[in-house]
C-alpha cells in the first residue's frame, strides 16, 4: 500500500540539524584520540569541522539557493587551508595557486611516509594534522549536503560512520564507546527531524533499547577474532582521505599479500 510522501526536514530546522552534526563530528573527532598522541591536534581538526558546518549553515540562513552553501563551505575550507598550511603561496593569501597545490602535494607525501613509519599512537606532526583536517572537512561538507541540502539525514550517516570507523580500521578494539554512543544518539535525533512530533517517549525507548542492546549483545555473540591473514587489500572508500591513513598505518604489519606456486 502506498504510503504518503513524507517531506524531509523543513528548511527552518537546518540550525537544529547543523547542531546535531556538530556534536556528532565533535564526538567522532574526539574518538581519534586513541590514534594520536597529545591533544594539540584536536583544536585545528575540530575547527575545520565547525568551519565547514557553520559556513554552510550561515549561508543557508541567508536564504541562498540550495546549492550555494556547499560551495561556500568548500571555498572557505580551501581558503583557510591555503592560509594556514601553505602560507605566502596564495594570491591575496587565500586564493590557491599552482605553488599552493605543490605544497599540498608535498604535505600529502610527507604525511604518507610519516604514517607508514610511525606506530600507534602516532605523533601528530603538521602533515598528519593537514590530512586529518582536510578529511574531516570533506566529511563535514558531504554530511551537511546530505542532511540539509538534500534533506536525507539517513544518508548523512555515511560520512559520519566513515569518520567514526577510522580508529577501528587502524587498530582493532581500541575505539571509544562514548564516541559511539554520542554519534548514535545524534544520528537518531537527525532521523527524527521532520517526522511527526509527539512520540518523544517512544523514540527514546526505541533508541535506548537499540543502543544498549548493540553494546551488550557482542558479549553473548561469538567473539570477533582478529584475523591477521587478511586479504591484503584493505577496504577503500575513495571518499575520505582519512581512511588511507589507516591503510598506511597498517602497512607496517606483516601479512601475506600473494601466494603462488609453479608447477
Amino acid at each position, binding site marked *: *500500500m502506498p*504510503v*504518503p510522501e*513524507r517531506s524531509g526536514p523543513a528548511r527552518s530546522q537546518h540550525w537544529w540539524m547543523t547542531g546535531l552534526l556538530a556534536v556528532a563530528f565533535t564526538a567522532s573527532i574526539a574518538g581519534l584520540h586513541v590514534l594520536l598522541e597529545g591533544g594539540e591536534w584536536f583544536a585545528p581538526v575540530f575547527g575545520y569541522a565547525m568551519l565547514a558546518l557553520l559556513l554552510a549553515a550561515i549561508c543557508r540562513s541567508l536564504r541562498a539557493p540550495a546549492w550555494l552553501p556547499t560551495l561556500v563551505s568548500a571555498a572557505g575550507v580551501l581558503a583557510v587551508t591555503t592560509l594556514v598550511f601553505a602560507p605566502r603561496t596564495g594570491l591575496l593569501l587565500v586564493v590557491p595557486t599552482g605553488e599552493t597545490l605543490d605544497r599540498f602535494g608535498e604535505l600529502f607525501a610527507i604525511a604518507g611516509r610519516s604514517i607508514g613509519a610511525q606506530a600507534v599512537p602516532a605523533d601528530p606532526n603538521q602533515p598528519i594534522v593537514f590530512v586529518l583536517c582536510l578529511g574531516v572537512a570533506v566529511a563535514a561538507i558531504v554530511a551537511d549536503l546530505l542532511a540539509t541540502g538534500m534533506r536525507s539525514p*539517513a544518508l548523512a550517516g555515511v560520512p559520519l*560512520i566513515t569518520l*567514526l*570507523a577510522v*580508529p*577501528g*580500521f587502524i587498530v*582493532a*578494539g581500541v*575505539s571509544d*564507546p562514548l564516541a*559511539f554512543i554520542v554519534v*548514535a544518539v545524534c544520528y*537518531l535525533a537527525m*532521523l*527524527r527531524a521532520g*517526522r*511527526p*512530533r*509527539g*512520540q518523544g517517549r*517512544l*523514540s527514546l525507548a*526505541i533508541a535506548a*533499547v*537499540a*543502543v544498549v*542492546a*548493540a*553494546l551488550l*549483545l*557482542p558479549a553473548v*555473540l*561469538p567473539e*570477533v*577474532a*582478529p*584475523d*591477521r591473514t*587478511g586479504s591484503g587489500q584493505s*577496504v577503500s572508500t575513495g571518499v575520505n582521505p582519512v581512511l588511507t591513513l589507516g591503510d598506511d598505518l597498517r602497512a607496517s604489519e606483516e601479512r601475506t599479500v600473494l601466494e603462488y606456486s609453479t608447477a
Partner: protein
Amino acid sequence: MAEPEPGRPPRSRVARLSRRGWSLGVVGVSAILVAYVTGRPEFLVGGLLLLLLPVLAFLWVRFRRVSLIASRTFLPEVVEVQAETRVRLVVENLASGASPVGYWRDTWPWPPFVTAPSAFPLISGRAAYGRDAAAEQFDYRLRPTRRGVFEVGPLIVDFGDPFGLADSAVTAVGSNRVVVTPAVVELAEGALSLAIDEGPTRMPTRRSFGGDDDTMTREYRRGDAMRRVHWRATAHHGELMVRQEEQRDHAEARIVLETRRSAYRDARGSGTVDQAESEAFEWSVGFVASLSSHLAQRGFQVGLAETGRPQLASIEQPEEFRLSLAEVQLTDQPDAQFSVLRRGARADRRQGSIFAVLSESDDELIDRLARRRTSFDLAVAFVVHPRTPRQMATLSRAGWVCVRVEPQDGVQEAWVAAGAEQESARAGT
C-alpha cells in the same frame, strides 16, 4: 487495492520497512560481516545498532495495539452525482494506549479511491482519558461521480516509527452508506410544448357564477387541441375557450423506462463498484430523474412504467423515489404487468403525454408503443445509443417524436432536441 473477500474481515494491517529501514538493515548486516571477517569488534557494535533499529521499528509498527473506529455523517445525506457532500468523520480510539501519529486517508469507491493523506493527530487512549473513548473529528468533501448506493470507508491510518524506518497502514473499522442520486437538470421551460402546462391541483380557479358554460371552460392556450374548443363558450366570451373537464386527462404524463438488460447493447452483465454496467442505462435513469421532476413541478400526475421488474417507487413519494433512482439496476426479469397505458385507463381516451426512454428495445415493445400512440396527445421517445435507426423509424411513422441520444449527450440537449423535432414534425404535417 484488492477487494476484501466477502465474509472475511479485510486485512486490518500492513507493515513494512521503509527504504530507509532496509538501507540501515543492509548496512548493519554488512558491518557485522565485516566485523567477523576482519576481526574488528567496533564494527559488530555499529552493525548491531544499525540492524536493531529497523527490526525494533518494524516490530513496533507491526504489533502495537491499534483499535480505531471511524464513523461518518454526510451532509447532505443524499447527494446528487457531481454535487458535493460534506463528510464528517469521527475516529474513536478504543485502545488503552494512545493512537499512532501519522496520516489518514478515507477510501471511497470512485477514482482515485482515497482522499489525499492528511495529518492524523495523537488520540489519547482510554487509560489516559478516563472511561470514555477519546475521539477526533475530521471533515472533508466528497464529490461522487456515479449514481448508486456506496460504502465509504474504511479509514486507513498510515503511521511509522519515529525514525521513519518502518511504515504501517492500519484500517479503522467502519464504513458508511452514501446514497448518490442522478443529477436533476432543470429542463428548459417551453422547449417542448406539452399538451397542457398546468395540472389540476395548480389550476387557478377561473370559475365564475355566470352559467354552466363558464364553470367548465377556460381560455384557449397554445397546444390545446382544436377538437376541445367549446364553441358555445367561445361565442359567449368572445375568445377561444376549451372544455375544462378534459384537463384531468391531459395533466397526466406517462414515462416508460426501459430497464431490461437485453435492451441495452452496452450492458456488461453486471456493474462493478467503480464502473456502471451500462452508460446508456445511466443516461436513461438520469434523464428520467430530470424529466419526472420537471413534469411533477408543473403539476402533472406522472406515472412511471418500467419494462423490467418494478424497482422505482411512486413519484408521489419524492424521497423514496429519489432513493429508488439511486438504486435502480438493469434486470433480466421483464415486468409481466407492463402496460403502456395507465392501469384502468381506456385506450380510446386521450391520456396526455407519454415519454419513452429506450435503447435497443425489442420489436414487441416498439410495436406496442407505436399502437398506443393514438391514446396520447404527445408522444416523445428518447432512444439512447441504438444500433440501427429502424426502431426509431417505426415509432416516427406511428407519430412519435423521436430523439436519438448518445450516453455522453447532455440531458438538456436531448430535451431541446425533442422540442426541435416536434417543431419539424408539425411543420412536416
